[in-house]
């Protein structure tokens, strides 16, 4: 057997270089083609579909996480304060009443501190409704004392109310309970709706990944059969396809998840920039500081992992089912394809 001097073949030579016709020349070989054919239109569509669905799923995760976090913020911010309101009256020393209410409240167990909203601040608060240059003293404007509550050990609100009302005429205490309750139930409803949408989107994601993977694999029947007939074990064949489609899945997931992350960052940036404007302040009052929490980013990561896992698993099941099909046909010659 003639063994040329160069039986070790250089791999670097390009794949399509034709033989030169010289018999003694040892040709260069390209790196082995992958066993599963390289990306075709179907697998590019698979990546695209997975990217889009991952994007939507990540947005849903982010939105739910945002709403959930905002709900917590509302709840704690509002529950952190109570307000004592003192209405003016005839022959009524407002300043003394304010000071008395403040000191009473501040000394109460479970109260962190109490602060009188001063004249100027009150005027500023009313300005949006009443306009500037209003004669403050001519109007019977009630005055407020803001009581900061220790959230961990809130005061006995009914006792506090009795104390204040008993000692300070024209006073009432608003513990914001009505607001808190309403906001909590609203936040809960929003979160439940968000979670429902998230479940729907995730279900759609799972189904899309499964069907897109199966679609992308439908052209691979021939390859599976040939591998089977040249003596490859089922596990080997499944592994080849799995790895390929796992990569497609993760790639699609990364594109979708990456796009969603960019959206999150943009929203956070926009919110941070606008927080100084009145609209921004209103928005941030509702949605907290718009910071998309670590939860959302963890969600994006989870979506990518889920997508990769699903594509790999679907591929494996499809390959094994195809092989079982070949074997069934073997057992049952009467079955027509």
């Amino acid at each position, binding site marked *: *057997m003639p063994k040329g001097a160069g*039986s070790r*073949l250089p791999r670097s030579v390009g*794949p*399509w*270089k*034709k*033989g030169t*016709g010289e*018999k003694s020349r*040892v*040709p260069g*070989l*390209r790196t*082995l*083609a992958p*066993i599963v*054919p*390289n990306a075709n239109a179907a697998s590019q569509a698979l990546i695209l579909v997975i990217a889009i669905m991952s994007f939507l799923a990540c947005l849903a995760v982010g939105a739910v996480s945002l709403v959930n976090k905002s709900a917590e913020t509302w709840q704690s911010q509002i529950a952190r304060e109570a307000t004592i309101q003192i209405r003016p009256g005839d022959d009524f020393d407002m300043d003394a009443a304010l000071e008395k209410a403040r000191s009473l409240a501040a000394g109460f167990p479970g109260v962190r501190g109490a602060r009188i909203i001063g004249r100027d601040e009150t005027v500023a608060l009313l300005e949006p409704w009443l306009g500037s240059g209003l004669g403050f003293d001519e109007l019977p404007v009630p005055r407020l004392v803001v009581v900061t509550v220790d959230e961990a050990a809130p005061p006995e609100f009914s006792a506090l109310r009795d104390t204040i009302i008993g000692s300070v005429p024209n006073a009432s205490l608003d513990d914001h309970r009505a607001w808190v309750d309403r906001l909590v139930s609203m936040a809960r409803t929003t979160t439940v709706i968000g979670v429902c949408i998230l479940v729907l989107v995730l279900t759609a994601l799972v189904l899309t990944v499964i069907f897109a993977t199966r679609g992308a694999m439908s052209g691979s029947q*021939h*390859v599976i*059969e*040939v*591998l*089977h*007939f*040249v*003596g*490859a*074990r*089922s596990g*080997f*064949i499944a592994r080849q396809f799995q790895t390929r489609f796992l990569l497609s899945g993760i790639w699609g997931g990364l594109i979708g998840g990456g796009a969603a992350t960019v959206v999150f960052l943009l929203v956070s940036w926009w919110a941070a920039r606008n927080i100084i404007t009145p609209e921004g302040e209103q928005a941030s009052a509702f949605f907290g500081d718009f910071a998309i929490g670590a939860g959302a980013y963890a969600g994006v990561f989870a979506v990518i992992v889920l997508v990769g896992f699903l594509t790999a698993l679907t591929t494996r099941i499809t390959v094994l089912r195809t092989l079982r099909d*070949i*074997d069934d046909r*073997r*057992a049952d*010659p*009467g*079955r*027509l394809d």
Partner: protein
Amino acid sequence: MIEMYAALVNRRFWKAVADAGSVPFAGRLLYSFAIAVLANRTGRLIKFENVGLRYGMGPEVLRDVSFHIPKQSFQFLTGPSGAGKTTLLRLLFMSLRPTRGLITIFNKDMAMIEPAELPLLRRRIGVVFQDFRLLDHMTIYENVGLPLRVRGKEESSYQHDVLELLKWVGLGERIHALPPVLSGGEKQRVAIARALIDQPEILLADEPTGNVDTPMAQRLLRLFLELNRLGTAVVIATHDLGLMDQVDARRMILSNGQLEIYE
């Protein structure tokens, strides 16, 4: 050419002997000898006893077919188109199970073979399909190396063998070509090379000369004969009488579902 293939065989054999490691050389030699003797004891690779096959509710394509394929034998399987040649080859390759009768392959009852065991048994059988079944995204070289690749072998360990074999079938200059650009005869030879690369004990070829002109058919026939002389049993399904007349070989003739054998 024969020498080349013989050298190929021998190199493998001695490598296998050398690879066996710590066992003393004499022991190894004795072992391989014993294996050879044991395997030769029965002298047959495949045995059919009263095999019948029907597709679905259709008529029996094969009826009471009994024969065996001896080791290192050469035979034609013939009969008119539609007589059941492909069906019989599929039974031999275990891609069909008989509706009745007993098939023994490598001393195993086919009905008892587990699906997981099939790939391992198939590795001992080389098949040339009527439609070749090459993978279009792989070069000729890669297609021929595929059986070894799926057995988990490193490319460096078989590279040289594949190139030698491709030279042997006359495709030494076409190793980079992809199957879609090949002529029928070239595809045929790639399929043959792929069937031979792991040195099967038996080669099954379905109409291997169906797509080629007469000179090429003769060339392929010579190739099969050389292969047979090197020890591989060969079954060629063909309806080409001219081809069979060139060789004085065993003939298995299918007609009306029955098999007649002319030694």
